[in-house]
């Protein structure tokens, strides 16, 4: 099993529980949609799985590594080498060009592969935009750069938090198609947070969070 989330609990400062007892698994090459109402803890669970935040109880295991045993350096190494993230707000580095943004994660991981990045740029329709800066791109184009950056490391797990939440209908469709096809081609697993039932329907499995638990 690539990712195991086992009876995980998480409360916000002040004691309000967000996740009461969440368990789920994700296998290599599998895609899973995580749905739920606003405030149900979808993004929080994704952040925990991405080793971006700590949890109060239970365990999350990624490729056999228990996240609770890792310090900041270990968590950073996991994010660098094993998984990739795509955010709703794109989170590109504004001072780097498209080409530099595409390759930055792979270079940080020590896995720079210019041919693969060029291939990704081609597939994502970014080949003509390589010298531009993020502020010169549309929202859809920026999210395509973010997907390319995430896939440049050939991650085992792609975690996507509402990746089309900031895009219009047409751009959303394009971005989702590209992400799913790249995940399928590379054999990565995908955990995608969304509130859209249509998007969730396109993935292998679906898990619904409600009241801090998987319903």
């Amino acid at each position, binding site marked *: 099993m690539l990712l195991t989330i086992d009876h995980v609990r998480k409360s916000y400062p002040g004691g309000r529980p967000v996740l009461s007892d969440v368990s789920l698994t994700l296998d290599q090459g599998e895609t899973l949609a995580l749905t739920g109402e606003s405030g149900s803890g979808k993004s929080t669970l994704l952040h925990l799985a991405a080793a971006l935040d700590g949890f109060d109880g239970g365990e999350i295991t990624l490729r056999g590594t228990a996240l609770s045993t890792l310090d900041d350096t270990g968590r950073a190494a996991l994010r660098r080498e094993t998984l990739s993230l795509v955010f709703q707000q794109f989170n590109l580095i504004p*001072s780097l060009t498209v080409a530099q943004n595409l390759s930055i994660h792979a270079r940080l991981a020590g896995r720079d592969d210019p041919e693969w990045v060029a291939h990704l740029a081609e597939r994502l329709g970014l080949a003509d935009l390589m010298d531009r800066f993020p502020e010169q791109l549309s929202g859809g184009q920026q999210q395509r750069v973010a997907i390319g950056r995430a896939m440049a490391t050939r991650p085992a797990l792609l975690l996507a938090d509402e990746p089309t939440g900031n895009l219009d209908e047409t751009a959303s469709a394009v971005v989702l198609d590209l992400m799913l096809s790249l995940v399928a081609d590379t054999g990565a697993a995908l955990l995608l947070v969304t509130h859209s039932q249509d998007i969730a329907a396109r993935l292998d499995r679906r898990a619904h969070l409600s009241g801090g638990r998987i319903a």
Partner: protein
Amino acid sequence: MTGPCLQVLLSHWRTHRLQLLTLLTGIALATGLWSAVQAINAEARASYARASAQLAQGQFDELHDPSGPIPLSRYVDLRRAGWQVAAVLQGDLRVNGRILRLLGVDMVSYPALPAVTQAEESETPPDPADVLTAPGRLLMHPDMEPLFRGSEEYPPIILSTALPPDLVLTDIGVAERLLNQPGLISRLVILPEQPSVRPPLSQIAPELVRTEPSARTDAARLTDSFHLNLSAFGLLSFAVGLFIVNGTVGLAFAQRRGMIRTLRALGVPMRTLVQLILSELVLLALIGGVLGLILGYFLAGALLPDVAATLRGLYDAPVEGQLTLRPEWALAGLAMAVGGTLVASGHALWKLSRMPLLAGPGLQAWGGAASQRVAGAAGLGLLGLGLVLHVSADGLIAGFAMLACLLTGAALVLPIFLSTLLSATARRARGPLAQWVWADMRAQLPGLSLALMALLLALAANVGVGTMVSSFRLTFTGWLDQRLASELYVTARDDEQGSQIAAWLAPQVDAVLPIRSTEMTHETGPLFLYGVVDDETYRQKWPLIARSPGAWDMVMSGDAILINEQLARRADLWPGDSLTLTPDQTLTIAGVYSDYGNPTGQAIVAMPLFQTIAPNSSARRFGIRVAPERAADLAQAMRDQFDLPPRAVTPQGAMKAQSLAIFDKTFVVTSALNVLTLGVAGFAILTSLLTLWTQRLPQVAPVWALGLTRAELARLELLRSVLLAALTACLALPLGLVLAWVLLAVINVQAFGWRLPMFLFPADWLRLFALTLLAAALAAALPAWRLLRIRPADLLRVFANER
């Protein structure tokens, strides 16, 4: 990982070039002003040390006679008794209108001097016989040689770079002739090699006093306070420069929060990021530091001649007017640049390192209300500490510590003070636009507060130092009028000519006032004792700041003494106390007089008493009381009668002008630093406004959309800057006056030994206020112009980004 991570971090500066320029300028200005002061101090101190080594001063004990020169016979007695001593005769030599110090030493026995060794090792070494026998040789620095060109009366010259400026070295025999003091010796140097058995000094020469090097007048010690004052102002400029660094780094970090968050999400550990950011800061500090050193070097080069003139005029300290590039100065400057940058960035870096990974990328954390409150509380604490220091601590360092507490405390309190003031004004504002303007001004405070703090410090320093200098000048001018009461001052060639001139003058003037002095020692340092004749001039004019009843009668009866303020404060001696001059001469202090510009202790006794203490002291100088309208004719008649050079007879006006010129030069450096500090503060406002520009659009775009024109927004932008500067200036005035009071009543007393009255100069404040408003308007002009010219599409983009 390091390479790509560094590339990302540095890419920020590529898109924020103005911010980078601001940061480097801040570091360069801070380093430059500080380094300039340090270069001046180092050059001066090196000159003192060089002069001391070049003349073998400060190494050996010496013998001198408090009553005047040592006769040659006494020297012979000592040598015959086995005492290994070397004779020195020194005096002023007037050459083509310039006064040089002539040092005549016994070339055979005096310790080896670098200048002599240099001459001996040159390609054309002088014949030792030529140096020792008539006409002898004069050794001097090459800069002095042009003064002697064409003068036949002087011996041939040997040039040496191993001598201080304004000094001529020669054999004592030549000096006797040039100074017209045959058979006289100023002091005897006790050589290190002495026979094991020799009679005690008290048997052979009981009148001679032995002094250790530490008890003698020493340029480095005398000028310590001057250099400390200079360093304090350099530090203030440095601190103001660091405000720019602090503001810019804080904003740069805030703007990079999103980037940092993304990098961490991509797997870069926080520790790595902090290390890289630290390396980046050090690199930037080094670049800014190098630029600062270049600036500092040129600034020091421009200011050094005035400082050298001041030190020569005030302390007779040998300082060359040329700057030498010293590696230790450059290293210290770079260390200050790096240290200052890290101190200025420390808080921002610490906050960044504690930032949760999932924190938002906004700028909220940059100077919020909470940090304003913390800063305000710290400021109040520092103000309290300053008051405690004032009440409980003494000394120059404590004085500067108090100043630092007051200035830093006031600067830290400023933002919360302005914020409270602005919200109170906003509540009273009528009309929506006025309400928005006041509220917007308050909202901008966190981003501008550092620049406003810098402005507050610079303005307070200007008011404070300006008030101190102007008060000092006013007091000094009045004091000169009292002290330089004689219409003419005469310096004869020797005592014999002095007697002839006095006799010639007596029937044709109101009074001839001899000026005679001798150097003595006191536990607080050198003490110069003067003898005065009983004359109404002293009783009416001499500036006494504390006195016993009938002070002058007591002094003239030979029972009492007057001392200068410096000695009074250093030794805590006041009217009614006693001062021991010699073992059998203890006198009651009848009064204390102000004595500005003199670094050493001084005392006055009646002439008959003086003559018993120092019977052989020189009697070449006089003050002459004569009707002012007769002074010029009398001066010329005296020159003609006694073949005196023009400068030997100086009118009162020339003496005053000379003294005021020295006074004004003393404050050239502090005034320059003041102006530069104000310039730096103005630049801090400009850079803050420019760096805040990107955050400004989301605030003005909605108001523009609601119907205000871009021209109106631009005008309001100008108004905002000017109003904030005006409020800061209003607060700077009382702070500046407190600073002036501390400078006059604490720092000056501790540093120089005199306390000055404080005068107020409202016209100067108004000028400074106008200058501040102008600087603020200029600083806001560029952002306002940008706002005026901004395309509607750019304003609309704000709304597009709000999705």
